[in-house]
């Protein structure tokens, strides 16, 4: 061992210092022509969006999540057209309600159904996940529950996005007294016990809204559900607003904002062109995470009987109903729980992927 190599070896095990001994010539290959070309292509940037999408496409976890989520959405749209059972009514055989089709295990038929199939030779659609204690096909209920839960998540995330971003941007950008007043309002809303408010508002709004929406499509979801949307809109934007404001305060200190002012770019334009794109990553992530958090809230509201109106269901209320049969039919709890996990995980991974792809400071 030569003298110089000895010096390299002096590095402490736990030190963060670069291990120089690894820097031998043999550890470094010359770049091939192909690699060099790749470097050039990398440097050739076209547009912010294109670049981001290209990076996103390279993120396998995020892409897999996107595919799974899209598949799930397609499934909850298409499946109700194929499966001949209703989420709301007991199984009927030949027009008669089938009392024997209660609590069927997966892929089983009820006695009446077996009889009917024998008599007519017709093949009935299987109960993929059996039936529940009221004799309803559980699979179709899970599909409808997923529909409801996802739309609660998406709608509330969109509302949080719109209100939070506008509010936070204005507050952070103008600063001073405007910011002071706007942020005190946020503090007040933040300090309210949100569950209590949600419950109170749900009860009050439900009573008011139900007569209003009678006969419309909304009636199917029920006053509770609308109340929930309104409550989300009223309460949950504050987190987003705070986050956006904080980001903007730090972005505002960049000289490029001052440069835009020196140019004469109007305030609205500065917000749209310089500020919002720079807080976009944080907005995207927060929105992506808002969806699962709304799904959770919806679940425990359903548990309290403040969720969707019966017989409509959601993943949360399915899971809660399943507690009664947890020993005899544990899959009734597992399936909706699994769907929730898949949705939440996929959204998290997508959020992370988007951040990595669109945050140019990380590149």
């Amino acid at each position, binding site marked *: 061992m030569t003298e110089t190599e000895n010096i390299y070896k002096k590095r402490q095990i736990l030190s963060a210092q670069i291990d120089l001994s690894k820097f031998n010539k043999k550890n470094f290959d010359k770049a091939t022509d192909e690699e060099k070309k790749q470097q050039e292509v990398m440097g050739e940037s076209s547009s912010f969006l294109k670049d981001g999408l290209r990076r996103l496409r390279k993120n396998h976890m995020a892409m897999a999540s996107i595919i799974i989520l899209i598949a799930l959405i397609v499934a909850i749209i298409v499946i109700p057209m194929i499966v001949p059972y209703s989420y709301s009514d007991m199984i009927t055989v030949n027009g008669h309600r089938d009392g024997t089709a209660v609590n069927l295990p997966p892929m089983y038929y009820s006695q009446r159904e077996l009889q009917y199939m024998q008599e007519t030779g017709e093949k009935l659609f299987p109960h993929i996940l059996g039936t529940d204690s009221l004799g309803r096909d559980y699979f179709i209920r899970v599909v409808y529950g997923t529909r409801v839960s996802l739309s609660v998540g998406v709608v509330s995330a969109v509302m949080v996005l719109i209100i939070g971003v506008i509010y936070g941007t204005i507050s952070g950008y103008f600063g001073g007294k405007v910011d002071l007043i706007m942020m005190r309002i946020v503090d007040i809303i933040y300090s309210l016990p949100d569950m209590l408010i949600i419950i109170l508002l749900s009860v009050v709004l439900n009573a008011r809204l139900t007569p209003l929406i009678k006969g419309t499509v909304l009636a199917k979801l029920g006053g509770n559900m609308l109340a929930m949307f309104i409550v989300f809109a009223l309460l949950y934007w504050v987190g987003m607003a705070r986050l956006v404001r904080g980001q903007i305060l730090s972005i505002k200190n960049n000289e490029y904002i001052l440069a835009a002012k020196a140019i004469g*770019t109007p305030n609205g334009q500065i917000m749209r062109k310089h500020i919002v794109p720079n807080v976009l990553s944080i907005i995207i992530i927060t929105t992506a995470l808002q969806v699962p958090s709304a799904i959770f809230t919806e679940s425990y509201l359903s548990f309290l009987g403040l969720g969707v109106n019966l017989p409509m269901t959601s993943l949360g209320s399915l899971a809660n109903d399943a507690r009664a049969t947890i020993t005899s039919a544990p899959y009734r709890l597992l399936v909706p729980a699994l769907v929730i996990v898949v949705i939440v995980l996929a959204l998290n991974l997508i959020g992370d992927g988007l951040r990595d792809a669109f945050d140019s400071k990380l590149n």
Partner: protein
Amino acid sequence: MSENEKKPLLKVEHLKQYFPVSQGFHKIPLKAVDDISFEIMPGETLGLVGESGCGKTTVGRTILRLYEPTAGRIAFEDQVLFDSGELYDEEGNQILDEKGRPKKGRRVEVNMLPYRKKMQMVFQDPYSSLDPRMTVEEIVGEPLDTHHLYKNKKERREKVLSLLETVGLNAEHAMRYAHEFSGGQRQRIGIARALAVNPSFIVCDEAVSALDVSIQAQVLNMFEDLQDKLGIAYLFIAHDLLVVQHISDRIAVMYLGHMMEIADADELMNHPIHPYTLSLLSAIPIPDPETARHSHRIILEGDVPSPLHMPTGCPFRTRCKYATEKCAMERPPLTDRGNGHKCACWNR
């Protein structure tokens, strides 16, 4: 010289910029700029030097009204851009009414948008002054968009490319993001953005301070070339006399928000009057060791006082070896010492 040429392009009078700073429960003013007056002629470069924190940046930003001035008067090409309305007599003393309050004239605040085309700025930090999410073309095109300086996309692109060429970049650079460039190149992009509106005045706020010395020279030369070609006037801010001495026609020295001395560049370098300027000059390293040994250096002692606790009288007195009792009592006025060489000092 004709009558026309003698008119100043920019005239700043009694400019004050106080920032309210919270101290415990109440706010006290931080006097970042306190009563500064100067003029800049068309096509002229005024160097502005002083230690970091003395208020140079604030002066630059306030005359562009990026900060709203606390008081004073800013006029550009005969148009008053801002006037807080305080009145001053011939000697520069504020006119008070019978009750001892400042007498007020009319307050003026014009819409700056048309003047954004004439007055521009180049920033100190080549990193934070360019939006990381924009390509060079978008950055340089932004002023063109704001002021509708093109008829169609093709013309916009041509303008951007010709601006890039002016600052020594090429078409290939237009599609790239700012973070792909070196500090010197980034500064060129910032200059191209400032030039886009064809301004007659640019504030260069430490525009080369963040760059390597070799790059500094290149960029400085470019500023000079641009001035020769386009007749732009500069307010050239630096904390280092060495940087401004070559490019400046006149140099102003600031200390703690006050103007200490202002004179033609050669005059100031060769015959400095103010003790603070003397110390700044002697801080410049002398390349020849023989001369250096014989030169007599004035080393600045102590720290700059906080602008929140400004010394009474002369702001420099806590570090001045010429200081006398009078210096603590009264603030020295900026007086003409002949040939437009002005200095604020009681004892020199």
